[in-house]
């Protein structure tokens, strides 16, 4: 599903250059649930932004579903994002003046789907994340966990191929974080490919695979089952 080769990303800060990604190589197969781990400044969010077409790499190739993502203009990138990618952010990024239902309906508006259809699909997605009764509530009337569920429903409503989550549990307490990860696991079991950026090991352990980044390079890429087996052996 995703293929990354020799990906480089740097930022200019004044006269100096900050190399954030220094040649990343990795693949994600369809249906995988991958955690990208690393300490602050390791480049994990930058990598996710490039995968989500929210940012562009300086060098290297990125292939999504067999297509090389290169020289995309803003319009094409927006359409691809809408159709093939779903985003979940740490700070939820819901539109405050819209209700939960309307927030979830929004991606479908950009697909020119009728209002009736949008409402129907959004309601179903909210029910899938357990927020059916909260559809008419505004974000400020919802808890952190509920807001993130709305964000997940919004990310899934356009039936994307890949769900990208940047620290989805970062603003939640432990209990709510696990509940949310349970939900993401269920989504993955239903066949969705998930990439989750996190710095919390217990959250990463709930994924199928962990890619560890340090200073812009992958230092470890292992299946969780393998890690757990090694721990057992040790």
């Amino acid at each position, binding site marked *: 599903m995703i293929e990354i080769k020799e990906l480089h990303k740097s930022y200019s800060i004044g006269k100096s250059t900050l190399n954030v990604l220094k040649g990343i190589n990795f693949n994600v197969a369809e249906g995988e649930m991958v955690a990208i781990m690393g300490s602050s400044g390791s480049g994990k969010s930058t990598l996710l*932004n490039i995968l*989500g077409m*929210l*940012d562009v790499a300086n060098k290297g190739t990125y292939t999504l*579903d*067999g*297509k090389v993502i290169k020289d995309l203009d*803003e*319009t*094409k990138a*927006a*359409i*691809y*994002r*809408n*159709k*093939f990618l779903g*985003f979940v*952010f740490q*700070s939820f*990024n*819901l*539109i405050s*003046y*819209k209700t939960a239902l*309307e927030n979830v309906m*929004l*991606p479908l*508006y*950009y*697909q*020119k789907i*009728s*209002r009736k259809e949008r409402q129907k699909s959004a309601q179903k997605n909210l029910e899938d994340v357990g927020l059916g009764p909260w559809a008419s509530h505004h974000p400020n009337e919802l808890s952190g966990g509920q807001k993130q569920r709305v964000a997940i429903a*919004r990310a899934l409503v*356009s039936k994307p*191929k890949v769900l990208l989550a940047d620290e989805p549990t970062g603003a939640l307490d432990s209990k709510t974080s696990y509940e949310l990860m349970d939900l993401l696991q269920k989504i993955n079991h239903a066949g969705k490919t998930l990439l989750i950026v996190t710095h919390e090991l217990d959250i990463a352990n709930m994924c199928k695979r962990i890619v560890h980044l340090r200073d812009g390079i992958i230092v470890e890429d292992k299946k969780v089952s393998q890690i757990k087996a090694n721990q057992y052996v040790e």
Partner: protein
Amino acid sequence: MASLWRIKKSAKSKQISMWSRDRWQEMFYTLQKNKLRTSLSGFSVALGIFIFVVLFGFGNGLKNSFEQFFVDDSTNSIWLYPGQTEKPYRGYKAKRRIIFKNDDLTDIKQNFSFFIDYITPRISRGTLVKYEMESNNYTTRAVAPGHQFAEKTIVTSGRYINERDIKEKTKYATIGRLVEKDLFGNKPALGKNINVGGISFKVIGVFKDSGGDNEERLIYIPYTTRQQIEKSNDRVDQIMVAFKPELGYAGAMAFEKKLNTFMRKKHNIAPSDSGGIYIRNVANEFRQTQNIGSVLQYVVLFIGIGTLLAGIIGISNIMVFVVKERTKELGIRKAIGATPKSIVGMILQESVFITAIAGYAGLVAGIGTLALIGDSLEDYFISNPYIDTNEAIGATVILVVFGAIAGYIPAQRAAKIKPIIALRDG
């Protein structure tokens, strides 16, 4: 997999049309959900147009007041008034009173026929006028037919004094609308006889005059009749000469000079004597007033442009603020699939809609206010303040267009910003 990339070809078809019902619904919803922002933007636009309309209207009202000074008089007339000489001349002593007579009229007519449209004397007398049991004091003006044009008298029934009346010295009178109202009530005066200072005059016409009530309380009679009543003399109080309009301002000034010289010579007044005859050239006064009017026009234009500029700057500020405030929202929309074009389109549509509706409201409120004010500010030299519909609509369109431009620039910038930066900044 192939289907995944088919979207590339249909990218254009995914743009949401400006006329899409959905887009309008989304816009109305956004405006409704952000009432404070919407009402503040709208209020500033409406206020801008309102102030523009009212100020422009006041400016026009001021101009109207100046123009009204001449509304009841023709502007191609020269009035000659007899006075006292100040210097002795050709054996005549100083302080000699000059008297105009009928031969002055004849001489002017003969010598200046090339310049003259018509000429009329005027003899004014205050007289008690009676009809049956009603009576009142009025001013009678004994004139020639040309006086009608000099005073822009509008005859509403019957006729004005004519040449035959002058020749036959008829006892006919053309009375003002208010004289008829005072003496006859609601009955028509035409054909009835009134007693003018003890002499019976037949009412042959009724007139109105835009010069106001005083002008409509006058009675016009033939000047020859007045002379006959006053012991058959041939004196006249004043002479009004209407020059041909094609002479223009310079021609009128030259004619005035020639006329002055001629009359002074005829009445043996020293050329250097500032007394004797006084001349009032309406063309000159009109010209001066026109100059003031032009200055006023520039002032009005300046106020108008200033108000519009203030409005445009106000809208631009608000639009920049609105877009800035929505940066995060725009970033979210971009992250979930909004194209730059749809972002720009959304902001533009909202700003044009708000400015158009609010501009129209301001326009209606401004025109309504001017209508309500009407002539109530006449004491302050503002008569009938108004704004030309085209000017008002033009100003509103300018404001809407600049509102759109003001919205377009920050919207374009917001549409270009990377969603990840917008999300981070928000």
